[in-house]
């Protein structure tokens, strides 16, 4: 057990009274997620966690009926946990977060605007990247060029479902509608545009911009940029940003007494 391991186990099992701890550690020369209980050795914990631990947790969680789970969570993990607890997928009372401030390298790689969690337990907070250069570039393009760009990118999609499998807020797991032949009708790869449009729609009120989809894409499709563009739309139209534990998705509410002038709401 290294020093970080010692610090984390103390924090998780003594201070936070958790039953489990989810971290990343070095194992067989590789970086591995590790979900340990109190009496297990946490091993060589690594700081530069490349795993979206909320995703790792979400597969295990349904099989662990009781107990408090401490999770090393970056800013994006924290937002993901908010989204999941809000929707009743995770039980708020069973999750405790150990805040990890990402280093500059990680923040750069993720084009992260705000890598600082609400409470910093490990790491030194750094400044984020204010604007995603790719999003800026794409928004400046003509429709025609933008379509060309995305079509060329989506031609690399080989339907691995890595974007959903690794997504911390994609909680449909094995029931993803993208696997339905009725709605995404392509029988072979690459799937057509519908696949990506449908996913964009489904993620519009959930995505917390961790960028794991992009990192998991074998085709290097810049999915984070698309997520961010849709986000900007959500913000503009409904003033909604996912990851806030209190706000409800605008797609789930009525127009709520807003006076509906036909002209305004007809698109």
């Amino acid at each position, binding site marked *: 057990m290294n020093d970080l391991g010692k610090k984390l186990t103390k924090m998780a099992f003594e201070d936070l009274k958790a*039953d*489990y701890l989810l971290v990343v550690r070095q*194992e*067989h*020369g*590789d*970086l*591995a*997620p*590790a*979900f*340990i*209980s*109190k*009496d297990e050795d946490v091993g060589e914990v690594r700081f530069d966690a*490349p*795993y979206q631990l909320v*995703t*790792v947790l979400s*597969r*295990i969680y*349904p*099989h*662990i009926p*009781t*107990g408090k789970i401490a999770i090393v969570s970056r800013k994006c993990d924290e937002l993901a946990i908010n989204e999941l607890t809000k929707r009743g997928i995770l039980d708020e009372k069973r999750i405790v977060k150990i805040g990890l401030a990402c280093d500059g390298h990680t923040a750069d790689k993720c084009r992260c605007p705000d890598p600082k969690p609400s409470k910093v337990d490990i790491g030194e907070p750094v400044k984020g990247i204010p604007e995603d250069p790719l999003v800026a570039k794409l928004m400046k393009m003509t429709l025609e060029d933008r379509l060309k760009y995305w079509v*060329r990118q989506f*031609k*690399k999609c*080989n*339907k*691995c*479902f*890595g974007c959903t*499998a*690794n997504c911390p807020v994609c909680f449909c797991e*094995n029931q993803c509608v993208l*696997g*339905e*032949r009725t709605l995404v009708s392509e*029988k*072979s*790869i*690459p799937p057509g545009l519908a696949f990506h449009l449908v996913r964009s729609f489904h993620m519009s009120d959930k995505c917390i911009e961790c960028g794991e989809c992009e*990192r*998991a*894409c*074998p*085709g*290097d499709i810049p999915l984070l940029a698309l997520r961010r563009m849709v986000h900007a739309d959500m913000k503009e139209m409904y003033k909604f940003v996912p990851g806030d534990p209190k706000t409800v998705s605008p797609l789930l509410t009525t127009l709520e007494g807003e006076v509906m002038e036909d002209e305004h709401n007809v698109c």
Partner: protein
Amino acid sequence: MSTMSVRHVLTTCPFCGCGCNFYLQAVGNKLVGVVPDKSDVISQGRLCIKGYNAHAFVQHPDRLIHPLIKEGSGFRKATWDEALDRIVSEIKRISAKYGPDSIAVFSSAKCTNEENYLMQKIARAAVGTNNIDHCARLCHASTVAGLVYSFGSGAMTNSIPEFENANCLLVTGSNTLETHPLIGARMLRAIYGGAKAIVIDPRETALSRVAHMSLHQKPGTDIAWINGMARIIIEEKLYDKEFVETKTAFFDEFSKAVSEYTPEKVEEITGIPKDKIVEAARLYAKSDKAMIAYSMGVTQHSNGTEIVKALANLALLTGHIGKESTGVNPLRGQNNVQGACDAGALPNFYPGYQLVANAEVKSKFEKAWGKPLSDKVGLPMTVALQLAAEGKIKAIISFGENAMMSDADITHVQKGFERLEFFAAVDIFPTETTKFAHVILPAACYAEKDGTFTNTDRKVRRVRKAVDAPGEALPDWKIACELGKRFGAPGFDFKSPSEIMDELASVAPPYAGISFDRLENEILTWPCTAKDQTGAKILHVGGFKIGKGQFALSKHAPPAEETSEEYPLILSTGRNLFQYHTGTMTRRSPNLEREAPEPYVEINNEDARALGISEGDRVRVTTRRGSIAPVARVTDRILKGVLFIPFHYAEAAANMLTNPALDAAAKIPEYKVCAAKVEKA
């Protein structure tokens, strides 16, 4: 509160030859998911859909959980002792009656290196025959035969990550994005980074759609376009003169032999426009980092070995071999087909490609195994099955082979199984083949045992146990040990796969430097001949171990079966992305089955229109050997006159149709070409 045991077990994917590592997530004894390994050198934390679903079939209720013995028309539960004793006594009886060469053992490219090593050892040291083979026969046997001739070694000359840095990719007979997705991903990265890809395939594939050049040859005409390219390279003096002079043999003969393949003639034979051949030849020859990648579209022909050699000729001619991101790369299909060959599960090779026919080698192994061995080269699996139908092979022990799905002309294969006096099958699920067994043994699958797989770029990768095997199922290596002991052969009391690897390392030079201890923290690539080496990432650096690379005089020859008035279409078979081989595992994985749930035939839209067939119609596809009824997928992405059927589906098994004509050298069947007709069902 009692806590649950949650483990993330690093292991290797059981599907294709890419050999991606990932973590199996286990809670208690339940597998709950797959997490990609972010630091994996192959996958880089990415997987294909099969990888993400590699846990799904493991704990499927269909798993075989205890030994079974045939009784009447069904099976009854048996104890391990009874089942094992039955196998040994039957084999011994048949061996005594007809001789040991009346018995064949099939090992499996799905099993670990250690297990394959033991299976060939059972055949050779316990049963006393070299009749040991496995499904490499059906995929890259021609590669082994061809590349051993050309370069001295039948494996990928480069490593997977190198694809990414090539600036020319010549991909033929490989639907890489579907069959080797993570290799395909590297190719995509190269292409999107500016590399020029030439994809030559009768079908338009996901890769060909983003390639610089996408050419469609008539199936069975590969040697023509390859030789055509060679002719242009020679004629335009684009070949590497120095390399040819210093590192190769038979150039003059070769040069003369290809001279008849003029672009016009090539166009006539292959259907590829002549200017495209010229363009492709120039592109390949002029690129400094050019990689050839090929797969079953090349090997599964009755002249597959010749096609492989022809491709090797191109690399020899241009010196595109033995360098970073430059070489000839057969993409091997199964997760451990490389390893199964390495471990000696071949009728003509002992472990480490040491020739059975070599007396010196034989005596070395007799010494190592403490038993006299047969000096007779064994039978390839395809031949053994044909001989079974003739009554000359009397018994088969099969570890995981599903010949009733995977071998050509199933009807004939079935005759073989029906004539056998004894057939023992070891498998994880009941299959189309186990139906014919007299004894079925339940095996543990990859997630339930330790061992190693050697992937297509020759990396020896650990397989680790994540959960317990269901019921009484045992890992194949334990089954092999039990059988070996019961046959009374020495050297079968291994306590762990690690010990077996140590023995393999001691007899097979390419594995000499490999051990489980080292694999814990190191990436080892064969040939890894010493404990202080990590192996050769690139083969043939600086020259060929056999002295000189040999040009081969491959000649275009028509396929074994040509189209006729009655059977006017060419049928080709293969895989799709979502299913794997005979479907035993993937068809039990809901997310994979959902993607590709039913048997289909791809048919060109013009052919379909002429036949009155539309998308989704049930059709009948018939060849001289049989007939099946898949659903039509009408597409312009397949050449006119060509049909394609994936062979995953038992309900419309493509191999009812395929031609069992064998390649003369490699004995691989011609899965890629046979004459067929199609009509609305």
